[in-house]
């Protein structure tokens, strides 16, 4: 019988083999390979004793300060409706806008027209950004609804909702800062409230009794955050529609 090689055992330890079957069936018949593996395991497990120094609680902030000091450029403010939207959103939306604009132009405007109505660069950006914010608001509403509507029988595990909320929270921070910096106070306020609700969820235990879940829900409901999200998001959607009509008007 050919024994297992050290390489095979290492790959097995790290789960790098396409299938563990060969190794395990060999182990079943071969005490010597089992013992080899036990020793390898012991060595590799012992590596976990190695520790990394504790970092101060404000480590991230310190790193940012030192990185910022190294960026040889003046701090630059970006304003909500003049910033560059996320590129992937930009690519998609700009493409659609260009296709629509191109279609309208081709259809309604003589090729030799002296003036061509176009979306200015800023208009394109603003629309893309509005779309990104609306998307963020929708995502937040969905996450909150999921929590508010979850069935409570005995213990409820909300860890997957919390994971989702954590991702939303990070985006929310970026969008809120930019809204505040861009003078969009109403939007910034709602995002601020949203952040508080999201933090409340993240800081809850992941395993809630039905009483605790009911409490969390009533806190969320008392903040009427869902209502605020709906209002602001419908305002933004109206703005989107107005802009679309404006484009159509200019093009006809």
């Amino acid at each position: 019988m050919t024994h297992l090689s050290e390489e095979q055992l290492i790959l097995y330890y790290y789960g790098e083999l396409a299938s563990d079957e060969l190794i395990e069936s060999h182990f079943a018949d071969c005490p010597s390979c089992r013992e080899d593996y036990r020793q390898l395991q012991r060595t590799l497990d012992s590596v976990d004793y190695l520790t990394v120094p504790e970092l101060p609680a404000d480590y991230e902030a310190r790193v940012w300060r030192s990185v910022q000091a190294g960026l040889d450029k003046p701090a630059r403010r970006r304003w909500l409706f003049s910033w560059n939207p996320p590129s992937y959103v930009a690519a998609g939306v700009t493409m659609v806008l260009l296709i629509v604009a191109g279609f309208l132009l081709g259809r309604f405007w003589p090729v030799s027209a002296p003036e061509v109505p176009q979306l200015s660069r800023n208009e394109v950006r603003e629309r893309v950004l509005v779309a990104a914010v609306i998307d963020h608001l929708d995502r937040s509403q969905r996450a909150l609804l999921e929590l508010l509507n979850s069935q409570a029988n005995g213990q409820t595990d909300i860890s997957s909702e919390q994971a989702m909320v954590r991702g939303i929270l990070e985006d929310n921070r970026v969008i809120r800062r930019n809204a505040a910096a861009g003078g969009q106070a109403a939007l910034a306020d709602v995002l601020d409230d949203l952040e508080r609700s999201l933090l409340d969820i993240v800081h809850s235990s992941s395993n809630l009794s039905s009483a605790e879940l009911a409490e969390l829900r009533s806190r969320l409901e008392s903040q009427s955050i869902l209502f605020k999200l709906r209002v602001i998001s419908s305002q933004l959607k109206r703005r989107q529609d107005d802009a679309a009509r404006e484009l159509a008007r200019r093009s006809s």
Partner: protein
Amino acid sequence: MVQMDESDAITISLARDGDDEAFRTLVERHSRDVFRLAYRITVDQQDAEDVVQETFLRAYRGLKRFQGHSGFGTWLYRIAVNCSLDRVRRRRPDSAYDEKHVELDSAPDSATQVSCTGESPEAALLASEVRRQVASALRELSPLERTAFILRHFEGLSIEQIGAILGTECNATKHSIFRGIRKMRRVLAPVLGRTP
């Protein structure tokens, strides 16, 4: 390695377009992970802190070139690994880890601290002895072997991902890890019991 790519997508796009607040979010989100990786490769706190700063500065300058093919985490780790290896190689070869191991060996992490958590003093002493031996075993590895091993063992990256970070072929990556582990076993076998 932290799962970064999904929640990073929007932030990365903003940062790439010059939004410093977004870049700050990326720095804050990943600085601890980068420190941990850099510390394990350099085995020196000051070096690791310098690597963290340098990594993010390079990332900031290179962000425009980041295409998103490899995932932000892989990309950032590649920068951090390169910065760490530069530092290790800049030391005199014979002193690669020598000066540093004093600090590591005498770190105040041993008996007293562990016994507070309820472990017996014997267990704590044993743990600190194992830690000391593991640190010295790791010093036997070449910087590349060590890095490949750290990425596999501590960061849980696949051999394929490690190859992408180190720029090595699959087989070469595997063999760096195999060689590294073989060296460690030689040093650790007498400490841990039977010879391999």
